């Protein structure tokens, strides 16, 4: 008999032994030594007296080194995360650019801002497991996320395909947070069909002249630079072949940013218009007309954390608090059998997601090529996120109705309408419909899995 206990659950959802499960019999153990089983951090610890002594078994214990690491991260977060930022994240209040920026600076000073980067470019050298633990602890502590466009997106493209001048110019400023980036991929006619993009870059001496429009550009209104996919060869045999990857200063003349307001009333995305924008050729990354390859590299780079399990755990804990505070026939809604079952199903889905991610992580740790689990994690991760917002909406009942955008700003001192937690619930539900659309919609993700995994 082998006893496995998931310590990853210790924060966010419940006590560590909450997920305790027992697998019995050698048959199980045999099954577990298949190459695709979880084998994290190398700890091997069959219970004493087990019948299958001597076998290599997988386990989901953290090693003592991982535990020490986690404690270190936890302690750092406890002392370094500014309380006002923490409060805003915790209560679902709006975060300003300065909130993201100051947390970025704190992490930069600690040396933790870019865990995924190679050490010589300023990365941490952490293992996959450590990165996972770090993400989870950050979410549990209500740290804001780091804006992905610089650190997770363009940074890796630059250190992989950029020249030394580009590396020297851009990477340090991405790390320090001096430069903010946004992602200029999508266009009105090129959403799922990204290769259909039309924004044109024509060579004129030592500049490219850029004309066209990008859309859905997240935080373009906060950004210093935009990395763009542009068409440099309109006559290429395949649309993918005529695309280049260009870095553009947002202060260039001829760029106009117009806000797009989303259904929750928020402003996070924009249209970006380019009219005769002159971009130095030295801002071309890699080779001309090879941009699609770099773009796809970027899409596949950020697989760690794509499921956002840590944040979903935190959100689920919040949902449980709401359910405990809401009443149904005079008793807490959390004691209502039907609602409990809905939360339980969701929590099981989240566990399945978590362990799917851990399996992927363990494969990566043992040096296997990452497969298309990123697509699966994106699909299920966003479905779980959306389900959490849906159940929160159900839990608050009629108090989902009031629309009080001021209540989502920190420092609003009036008495809340209904329970305090209610104000952000409906806007969040509406807003999170985006998650199954952006970053390659879930339909497109399924198409990729069908094509690449199932070979249909």
């Amino acid at each position: 008999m082998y006893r496995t206990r998931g310590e990853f659950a210790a924060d966010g959802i419940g006590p560590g032994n909450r997920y305790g499960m027992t697998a019995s019999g050698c048959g199980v153990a045999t099954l577990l030594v298949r190459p695709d089983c979880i084998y994290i951090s190398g700890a091997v610890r069959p219970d004493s007296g087990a019948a299958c002594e001597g076998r290599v078994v997988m386990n989901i214990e953290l090693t003592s080194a991982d535990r020490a690491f986690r404690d270190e991260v936890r302690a750092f977060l406890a002392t370094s995360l500014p309380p006002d930022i923490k409060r805003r994240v915790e209560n679902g209040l709006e975060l300003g650019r300065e909130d993201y920026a100051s947390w970025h600076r704190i992490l930069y000073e600690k040396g933790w801002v870019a865990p995924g980067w190679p050490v010589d470019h300023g990365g941490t050298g952490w293992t996959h497991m450590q990165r996972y633990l770090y993400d989870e602890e950050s979410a549990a502590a209500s740290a804001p996320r780091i804006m992905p466009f610089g650190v997770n997106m363009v940074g890796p493209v630059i250190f992989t395909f950029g020249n030394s001048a580009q590396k020297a110019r851009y990477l340090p400023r991405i790390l320090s947070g001096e430069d903010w980036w946004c992602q200029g991929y999508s266009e009105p006619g090129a959403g799922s069909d990204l290769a259909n993009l039309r924004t044109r870059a024509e060579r004129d001496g030592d500049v490219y002249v850029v004309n066209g429009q990008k859309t859905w550009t997240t935080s373009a209104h906060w950004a210093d630079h935009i990395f763009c996919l542009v068409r440099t060869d309109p006559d290429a045999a395949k649309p993918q072949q005529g695309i280049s990857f260009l870095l553009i200063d947002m202060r260039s003349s001829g760029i106009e940013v117009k806000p797009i307001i989303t259904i929750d009333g928020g402003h996070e995305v924009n249209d970006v218009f380019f009219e005769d924008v002159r971009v130095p050729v030295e801002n071309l990354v890699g080779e001309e007309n090879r941009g699609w390859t770099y773009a796809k590299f970027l899409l596949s780079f950020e697989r760690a954390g794509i499921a956002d399990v840590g944040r979903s755990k935190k959100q689920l804990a919040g949902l449980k608090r709401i359910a405990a505070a809401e009443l149904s026939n005079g008793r807490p809604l959390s004691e209502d059998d039907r609602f409990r079952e809905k939360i339980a199903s969701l929590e099981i889905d989240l566990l399945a997601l978590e362990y799917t991610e851990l399996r992927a992580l363990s494969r990566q740790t043992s040096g296997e090529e990452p497969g298309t689990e990123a697509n699966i994690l994106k699909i299920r991760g966003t479905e779980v996120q959306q389900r959490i917002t849906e159940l929160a909406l159900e839990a608050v009942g009629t108090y989902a109705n009031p629309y009080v955008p001021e209540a989502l700003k920190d420092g609003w001192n009036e008495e809340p309408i209904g329970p305090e937690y209610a104000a952000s619930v409906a806007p969040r539900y509406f807003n999170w419909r985006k998650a199954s659309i952006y970053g390659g919609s879930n339909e497109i993700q399924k198409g990729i899995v069908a094509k690449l995994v199932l070979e249909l």
Partner: protein
Amino acid sequence: MDLSYGEDHTLLSESIARFIQNDYDFETRSRIAASDLGFDPTVWQQFADLGWLAIPFSEDEGGLGADPVSVMILMEQFGRGLVLEPYVPSILLGGRLIASMGGAEQRSRYLGDLIEGKIQLAFGHGEPGGRYALAHVATRAEGGAGGFTLSGHKAVVHNAEAADFIIVSARGSGEVRAQDGISLFVVPRETPGLTVRPYRTVDGFRAAELVLKGAQVGEDALLGEEGGAYPAIEAVTDRAVAAVCSEAVGVMDLLRETTLEYLKTRQQFGRPLGAFQVLQHRAVDMLIACEEARSLALMATLSLDKSAPERRRAVSAAKAHMGNSGRKVGQEAVQLHGGMGVTDELKVGHYFKRLTMIDTFFGDAAHHLDRFAGDA
């Protein structure tokens, strides 16, 4: 059995559809939503002049004596137009409560003016912590010399700020969730001791929190018998719920049509989105959800005059189904529009939000599932 419209029904449906098309396009609707009042008094007067405010009232009550199907037709078209004017709170709740509970004097005092568009009503019933239990009334009514003193808190009362009179439920006796002991009072909005805290709702309507602190009303404010209002509240809200299911049918149909149109016109990968079979199936599922919702809204409407248990089952079936099919159709409409679906600019998001909030109207899917099963 005949489930087809009569001639009157067809005419009514066409005239409301014409009104929406000519006088209530999406831009007009957005302008009205942004206005201080949140609805357009001239539009309301138009409704009165066209006789639409009279539809749910019998000839005795000063109305047209139209059947529930006429209300269904009206509400479906209002759903298609995402109409903001307070037909449900003012007419179907406030007006119907006075009509079914009030004495002759009270009816003549309020209903004539209501039907002519001169006054607005609201119904203050739900309370914090009551969830959807219809009998949950903690607000107290203390009888005294010459009238009653009301104290309590009413949650998310639609149209309260614009209402001249608010029908308030309050309890003279009994436990918080007991059906016995609930009375209804017609409370002028300006009554001292009544505070109205108004706000917008996420779907563009107006509602308010009501706080009653020793608000005094006269004996003539009491509707019907003291302590005996529950059956009428249930009957009136059931009618309103059936009507709102029809509104939802209109909202869903419009979302479905808009999405279908988008699938046919939006090109990706060199063809319309509708060429992808996976999206074709999703569009078919939306159609099925809409057809079923329509079937149940009709079934509920045709059951409104049956016995109370039959009416309850029918209304709860429709509302429970609507909660689920509405969520599905709303989410799919957004998803299939891609990024456009989550913008404030497009209609889709606004219809989606309305549909989402309809689920909270006098009981969500879970509540009505329980009620259908006989548990609530």
